[in-house]
């Protein structure tokens, strides 16, 4: 099987979905002629024409709001927010419409659409280019939120997202867009939305992460001796895969959640609460979270403090293993 990057996985998923299904359209700022500032959509306009792959004015509410209308009238739009920080001008559309059209119309209309957005830090970028805004989307009923961490999943989850009858927010860990390759089938396949990926089985502690941090967790576990960690790549943030998490914690009794998003009212809090609700009596140590600080992501000269690295994850694992109730 050929080796591909996450970026290639996504591009291929878009390409093949457009080839197969004439109702798929791809658009956003600079996604057409140039193929996207990260070149995720490179080649598509040439192949599928300016009507199905196009550049829009800089107007995120229009990009998302028009996708709502297109989805109602028979298309499957896949739109790009150039960076997740620039999805905020479309936040009104996403919360008040994308998430709600099915419920509002009692099922008459539903919105098979995907909103793609590169997210996360560590790319030495300007302000608003490094955010991790999972919570803003995971907290909204009616949305699904997917984040791949590998090329294989990137392709399969994107195909699943396009085929999903419900709207999917698809966050792309831009830091690892081209960081590594993996064998990725040339054919189309789906990775199911709503199922976590078991990265590594283990018995001592459950470590949950997603996006660019999954690899950092793997690296961390090379640094910690004698701890047999179970590593879960959450992959779908909402709806969350309770089963995989709860089964793992029942086995290990210890848990660490790692994410780039800021801590307070962040995604790890939900996971910890779920564990309290479903596996409290199995807990052998206080569940912990290793996250971004509760600050604005610093510009590059301060960002190293903010970035979570394997050493820090290892430090936390040791803390949790040392916990005695």
């Amino acid at each position, binding site marked *: 099987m050929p080796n591909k990057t996450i970026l290639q996985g996504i591009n291929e998923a878009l390409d093949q979905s457009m080839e197969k299904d004439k109702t798929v*359209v791809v658009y956003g700022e600079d996604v057409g002629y140039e193929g996207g500032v990260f070149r995720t959509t490179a080649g598509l306009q040439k192949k599928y024409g300016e*009507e*199905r792959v*196009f550049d*829009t*004015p800089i*107007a995120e*509410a*229009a990009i*998302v*709001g*028009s*996708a*709502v*209308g*297109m*989805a*109602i*009238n*028979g*298309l499957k*739009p896949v739109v790009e927010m150039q960076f997740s920080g620039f999805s905020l*001008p479309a936040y*009104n*559309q996403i919360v*008040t*419409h994308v998430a709600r*059209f*099915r*419920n*509002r*119309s*009692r*099922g*008459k*209309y*539903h919105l098979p659409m995907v909103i793609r957005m590169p997210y996360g830090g560590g790319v030495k970028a300007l302000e608003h280019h490094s955010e991790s805004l999972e919570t803003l989307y995971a907290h909204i*009923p*009616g949305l*699904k939120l997917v984040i791949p961490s590998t090329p294989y999943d990137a392709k399969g989850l994107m195909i699943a997202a396009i085929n999903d*009858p*419900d709207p999917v927010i698809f966050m792309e860990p831009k830091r690892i867009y081209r960081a590594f390759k993996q064998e990725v089938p040339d054919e189309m396949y789906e990775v199911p939305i*709503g199922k976590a990926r078991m990265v590594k089985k283990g018995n001592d502690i459950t470590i949950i992460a997603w996006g660019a941090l999954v690899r950092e967790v793997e690296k961390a576990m090379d640094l910690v001796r004698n701890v047999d960690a179970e590593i879960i790549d959450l992959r779908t943030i909402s*709806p*969350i895969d*309770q*089963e995989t998490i709860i089964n793992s914690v029942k086995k290990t009794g210890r848990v660490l959640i790692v994410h780039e998003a800021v801590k307070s009212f962040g995604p790890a809090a939900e996971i910890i609460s779920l564990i309290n609700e479903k596996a409290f009596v199995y807990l052998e140590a206080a569940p912990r979270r290793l996250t971004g600080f509760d600050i604005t992501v610093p510009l590059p000269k301060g960002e190293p403090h903010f970035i979570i690295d394997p050493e820090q994850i290892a430090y936390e694992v040791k803390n949790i293993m040392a916990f005695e109730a």
Partner: protein
Amino acid sequence: MLFENYDPLKGEMLQILDHEGKIVNDKLEPKINKDTLIKMYRTMVLGRVADEKALQFQRQGRMLTYAPNIGQEAAQVGPMAALKDNDWLVLAFREFNAMLYKGVTLEQAFLYWYGNERGSRYDDEVRVLPINVPIGSQINHAAGVAYASKLQKKDEVAIVFIGDGGTSHGEFHEGMNFAATFDLPMITVIQNNQYAISTPRHKATKAKTLAQKAIAYGIPGIQVDGNDPLAMYVAVEAARERAIKGEGPTLIEAVTYRIGPHTTSDNPKLYREDEEVERWMKKDPIQRFKKYLIDKKLWSEKKDEALHEEHKQNVLETFKHVEETGDVSLEEIFEYTYENMTPNLVEQMEYYKEYLKQGGNE
């Protein structure tokens, strides 16, 4: 053509049927067939009667809340008559008459204001989007609907309504520009009813007309007497022609007036004079249209009385049905969040049922 002849920057406004019901612009008088004229009028009267009754029901505590359309009937029915069945209607929230004309049933329309989401599930073949509460955002939906029509080479347009107040919103700008940029088959009707809740039109923008906002998007804009159903018909007909030809969207400002309160929670006496209301009541679209139809021998005072009575009965009976629908079931509030309920939602619903079983109280 039409749009070149009425330049909003020169203060020109299209009127065909004047306040007295006289044709003042016979060259532009549209050739609307008899059945359509009658359907237009019947809808306007139904809208009026339903509005008046709904206000009553609300005062009696039987209707939740309500946004009346009194005075704005022509601005809605004129456009609808100029469209085809397969055209899309994208709503703001004060388009009761447009909805009725386009096939939303009175029961559905009432059910919405009664507080039930089923009131936004119109019949399958009815191409109307649900009432849209967040001001301005519907323009972008209409642009998307129109994009899909164009891409799929369907011979159809999207008409979208917005209030005068709504034109200040960023979403109006983005949606208009998006539609113009891609020459989309979209028609925007601004119902300029002079107020956004308590805020008069002149306090919301310095533009002399709202129609001139079209210039920002490089498209035609026209001011129309919104209480003149014929003028509204003609403007939308011309806009539809442009749209279908691939020439892009048109902006139509319907100059009208909200005779009633903003909604039943609003007290307009706080911010406007009765005298102003009375002045506008003289421009009533229904009276005007009735005279036109009577002059054309298509209508009579006798028929009119019967129609009012018919509609009154219809409204009373329909509302009875609405009241019989009662509450929405527990299952229903969970069922439509996703195509399939997530395990989490199933669990929450079951938890609540368990609580109710144990004697819980809703």
